[in-house]
Every structure is written in C-alpha cells, then in structure tokens.
C-alpha cells in the first residue's frame, strides 16, 4: 500500500534533451502509423513546424509522459518508490497546464514530487477502500521557464 510518509517526497531532478526522432516515434504511436513518414508533417519536418509558427518541431500535448519516468526505474520504479503495489493500481486522472511550447532541441528539467496522499472509503471495506496518490511534475526548459505542469493521480485498491 502507498506509504503516507512519502507525502512531500521529491524525486531526483534530472534533465533530458527533447529529441526529434522521439517526438516522431511518439506521434506515430498515437496516429497508429507504421512509420514516421506517414505522420502529420508538423511532427517530423522542421520547415512545416516553422511555417506553423514554432521554433522547431513541437511536442504533442501528452508527450511529456515519455520523459517524466526516464530515470528512477521508470514508471514502475516510481510506483515502488511511493510504496504502491502495481497490481492494484489504477491511473485515474491526468492533468496538464501548458505555459510555453516544448520543441525538439529543448533541454527539459524534470522536478517531480508527491503533493497529495489520502484515503477514500473505510479500511474495513476492502473492496471500497482506496489509497490515492497525486504526483506533480514541473518541466522547466533551458531558459529556466516553467513550460508544463502535470498532475498525475493514482488510486490503489485496498
């Protein structure tokens, strides 16, 4: 069960460069395409991106999910770090706030912490008891600007 003493815990900070091929791969997965030439040119062609008003190839709205678990044992390691049991976990909510575009070539620093932990239901009613964990992730670019704030809510069945 998620360990309430982890409330406030900050995960190790790291930086990662946004790679254009990673963006294309991510978009190919979302567009269900077999290769990256078939995707929307905005996400593979720097000229198309510039024509659309970006400095470089932009990242789609949920792309940051691909680099918030880059270290620390990935998503599974992060779940273990809060003491939760993967087999009982549900991802119940995801929320993004966007402050500035993130494009290929940007260097993004990830700061993630546990911002909320609470119980739902009563412990005696095993099938209705839930432990909720909320992670907040700030993504900051090479100019020190907060570009995205993500909030991820997991519920763990009792």
């Amino acid at each position, binding site marked *: 069960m998620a360990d309430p003493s982890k409330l406030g815990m900050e995960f190790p900070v790291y930086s990662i460069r946004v790679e254009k091929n*990673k963006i294309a*791969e*991510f978009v*190919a*997965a*979302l*567009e*269900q395409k077999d290769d990256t030439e078939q995707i929307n040119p905005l996400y593979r062609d720097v000229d198309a991106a510039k024509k*659309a*008003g*970006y400095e470089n190839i*932009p990242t*789609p*709205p*949920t792309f940051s*999910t*691909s*680099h918030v*678990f*880059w270290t620390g044992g*990935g*998503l*599974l390691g992060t779940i273990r770090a809060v003491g939760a049991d*993967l*087999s*009982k976990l*549900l*991802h*119940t*909510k*995801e*929320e*993004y*706030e*966007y402050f500035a*575009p993130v494009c290929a070539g940007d260097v993004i620093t990830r700061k993630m912490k546990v911002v909320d932990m609470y119980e739902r239901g009563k412990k005696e009613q095993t099938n209705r008891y839930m432990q909720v964990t909320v992670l907040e992730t700030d993504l900051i670019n090479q100019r020190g600007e907060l570009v995205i704030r993500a909030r991820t809510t997991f519920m763990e069945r009792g």
Partner: protein
Amino acid sequence: MGLVFDEIQIGDVMPPYTCAPITRTHLVRYAGASGDFNPLHHDETFARAVGLETVIAQGMFIMGIAGQAVTSWIDHQCLRKFSVHFLGMTQPVNLDDYGNTKDRATITVSGKVVNKYEENGEKKIRCELTARDAQGSRKLKGFFVAALP
C-alpha cells in the same frame, strides 16, 4: 487550424475523431514510444494474474488519442490546460475474432464548447471532451482550455 475566438460559440462541436481499432501491436508501439512498460498493457500472463481477461490499453494512450482529436481542431500552441479522468478500461481487438471485438477497441473522441471567457488578457474557450468505444462505453471524460486569437 486557424480557429478564431469570435467565430466560436458555446455549444459548438469539436469535429469527432475516431481511431483505428486498437491492436496489441499498437499498445506495444505506444509502450516503446512512451516508456510505459507496465506489463498490464502487453503481457497477458500479468493481466490474468491481476484478474483481467486480457491486456488493456494505457490510459495515456487513450488520452494521447484525445489529444490528437484536440490538435486536429485547434493549434496546440493555443492549449492552456488539458485534463482527463479515466473511466473505463479498453481491451484491444482480438485478431482471431475481429468482427466481435473491434467495436470495444475503436475509440471516438467528441467534444463541445461549454464556455468562452477572458482571463489574463487572453480569450479562452473551455471544451468538454468524452472518449467512447463503438459500443458506447465511456473511456475518459475531461476538458481542455485554449486561448484563441
């Protein structure tokens, strides 16, 4: 692209977006692209061990598809918020029983403008979103806020 605040009315509908029937291969491709290697999404033995019939799609894959729906309609430089609640699991199509399973794996994202307002010097719309499979079962609901010219 090119949506303008003054031309959007409350009640306007976002063009619906429908994905191809989701296969296990799509889930594996998304796992690789996103780094979500929760075995629940690709390993049937794990899925069965936790009491599911089969693997299920990553919630973030469905949210990503919803994001496709949004950015097919508005330029994503305009996005200010994007938020979803996950409501139901999505099982992929069984290739040995395509006809009977494709509907559960075909997701349509729809949306409607519910508010127009000004905030921090920006003209914003709030649009509510729902993703459903072809059987009508809801996968997620949420909203986005966009600042339009």
